[in-house]
């Protein structure tokens, strides 16, 4: 059927029959008439496939992901495929448009009258609009362009553009509405589930009090120079999440159009009605910089959606290696503490590795870190390795904010982080110094601080050292990590060469 004159038994013909491949075939022009080609057939094939791909692409983008529910794979991992499916649809749309343009403007005579007439069809107009929209979506979701337009612009235009694109596709070829309805339904499910999750958290609460409750965060800046982070603290009445999970935080006083995922670094307490949230954000660009400008305020409203992501530990704790770089510690620290609390066999090998730029970074989470350090005594399998990559001697910050009162907490880490900030800078400096010295003190076996000056620890070394001890003991191995993506690459490469007998699970909490 595809082309008339060919040997039906030739290899290329058999392949063509199987795949329905369409060769470009041109029938000679008849005077005044249309030149018939197979280009239109092929353009339609590409168009139909792009329609079928649309709901799948939407599915890959959802946060309340049906795919995650079914497969257990975290929703972030589908983002790569979502982006590429979008690009494939763009390519298909472009080829379909070019194909029909060539057919109508070149092969169908008399040109250009036939083409102009064709363009007056409603479906042709919708087709052009859809092609324009998918081009817009593709260009404005490129990383470089987002850097230029800003995240907020991307977020608003990407969802509105996608809905308009789906609508335009429906208008273009309404006989294939099934794919477009499916796509719109999937978007609706995702969005309403997000809204429901937000409302579930923020409405209600205490008996008798109805209405929207917001979290009121206490904002601090910790660190100085090239190493500044924003720490958020607030209490909120809600059910406990699981260690390692994250929330999407929206700061309505900055913008209601943005929300970003942050892993909670404080420990959830299933026995309590009120949970304490602690977040660490690196003040780099965009909203985090505006947030840093609010430092010192104790009532910055926060709206949360979540929790998202798998909870940990996922297996009966045997051996755990947790590797964190910088603020990635918000993911690993609660997992390690929880694993140690649930430990059945106290000899289990648990390595907590934290790569930080400067020694002062230990002040970020000092109460939780003190708790972890104290666990060394009761857990002979626990090791803590701190690698400082930009200092050869610990430097105590002079300026800045002020985990002031936290110095006093060290005496009583049970209380959890204190959110009250009030101390003069000289007091702060003294208490910072004292706290940091206490945190750095090598007063326990299996606690190491290495000041590397200007290089990074090698991941194969970290993994090998852990594997030696873990395999000697045997049992399931759980490796978790979070931090810069380059560190994730190194860690993945190191783990790919590991030999184990009793099973190994690896999870990298990607921040991109």
């Amino acid at each position: 059927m595809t082309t008339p004159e060919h040997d039906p038994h030739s290899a290329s013909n058999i392949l063509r029959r199987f795949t329905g491949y369409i060769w470009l075939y041109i029938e000679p022009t008849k005077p005044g008439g249309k030149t018939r080609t197979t280009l239109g057939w092929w353009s339609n094939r590409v168009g139909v496939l792009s329609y079928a791909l649309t709901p799948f692409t939407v599915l890959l983008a959802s946060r309340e992901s049906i795919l995650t529910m079914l497969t257990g794979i975290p929703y972030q991992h589908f983002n790569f495929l979502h982006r590429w499916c979008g690009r494939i649809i763009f390519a298909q749309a472009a080829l379909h448009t070019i194909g029909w343009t060539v057919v109508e403007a070149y092969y169908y005579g008399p040109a250009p009258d036939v083409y102009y007439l064709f363009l007056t069809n409603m479906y042709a107009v919708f087709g052009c609009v859809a092609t324009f929209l998918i081009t817009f979506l593709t260009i404005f979701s490129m990383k470089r362009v987002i850097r230029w337009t800003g995240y907020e612009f991307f977020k608003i235009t990407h969802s509105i553009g996608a809905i308009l694109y789906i609508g335009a596709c429906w208008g273009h070829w309404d006989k294939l509405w099934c794919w477009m309805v499916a796509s719109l339904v999937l978007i609706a499910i995702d969005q309403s589930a997000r809204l429901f999750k937000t409302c579930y958290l923020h409405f209600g609460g205490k008996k008798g009090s109805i209405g929207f409750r917001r979290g009121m965060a206490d904002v601090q800046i910790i660190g100085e120079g090239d190493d500044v982070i924003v720490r958020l603290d607030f209490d909120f009445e809600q059910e406990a999440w699981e260690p390692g999970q994250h929330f999407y935080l929206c700061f309505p006083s900055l913008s209601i159009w943005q929300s970003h995922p942050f892993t909670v670094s404080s420990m959830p307490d299933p026995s309590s009605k009120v949970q304490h949230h602690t977040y660490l954000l690196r003040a780099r660009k965009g909203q985090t910089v505006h947030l840093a400008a609010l430092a010192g305020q104790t009532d910055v409203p926060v709206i949360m959606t979540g929790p998202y992501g798998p909870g940990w530990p996922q297996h009966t704790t045997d051996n755990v290696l947790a590797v964190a770089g910088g603020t990635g510690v918000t993911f690993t620290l609660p997992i390690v503490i929880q694993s140690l609390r649930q430990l059945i066999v106290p000899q289990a090998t648990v390595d907590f590795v934290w790569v930080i730029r400067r020694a002062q970074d230990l002040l970020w989470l000092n109460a939780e870190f003190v708790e972890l350090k104290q666990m060394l005594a009761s857990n002979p399998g626990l090791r803590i390795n701190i690698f400082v990559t930009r200092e050869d001697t610990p430097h105590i910050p002079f300026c800045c904010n002020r985990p002031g009162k936290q110095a006093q907490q060290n005496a009583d880490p049970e209380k959890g982080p204190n959110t009250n900030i009030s101390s003069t800078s000289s007091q702060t400096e003294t208490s910072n110094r004292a706290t940091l010295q206490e945190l750095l003190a090598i007063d326990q076996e299996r606690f190491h601080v290495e000041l590397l000056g200007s290089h990074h620890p090698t991941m194969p070394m970290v993994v090998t050292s852990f594997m030696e001890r873990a395999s000697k003991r045997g049992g399931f191995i759980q490796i978790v990590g979070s931090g810069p993506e380059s560190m994730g690459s190194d860690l993945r490469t190191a783990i790919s060469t590991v030999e184990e007998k009793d099973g190994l699970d690896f999870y990298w909490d990607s921040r991109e």
Partner: protein
Amino acid sequence: MAMDLPEGGYLVPHWGYADEPLPCESDEGTCRYLNGVYVMHDLSMKYSFIMWGVLLGIAVVWVTLRGWRMGGPSQRVGGVIDTVCNSLERAKRRWLLKDAPLPYFFGRTTRLQVAILAIMLGYLLIFS
């Protein structure tokens, strides 16, 4: 295709396309061309359903295996399916966990992601 139905003619429905008026009363070339449009469209629909069939099939197998492995009694551990799954996981870790080539093109991602993309692209290229 907006032509009046000839006497004794009938419409053949095609999913996702306009109904096909038969018998064709134009000249032979036009009829052959129009017939081709319908045949190729039906084939396109078939390929898109096969694509979804494969996707749903993978989902069903995945969910079944996952439920089976999570919910089963402990004697399932060490069984044939369990062993196969474990060695697949080892193979994945060994070969597909590393960074994919061409980071400036794909970004920093695993070989697994790029391999899945390649399979999808392969399907779409062959069938279009």
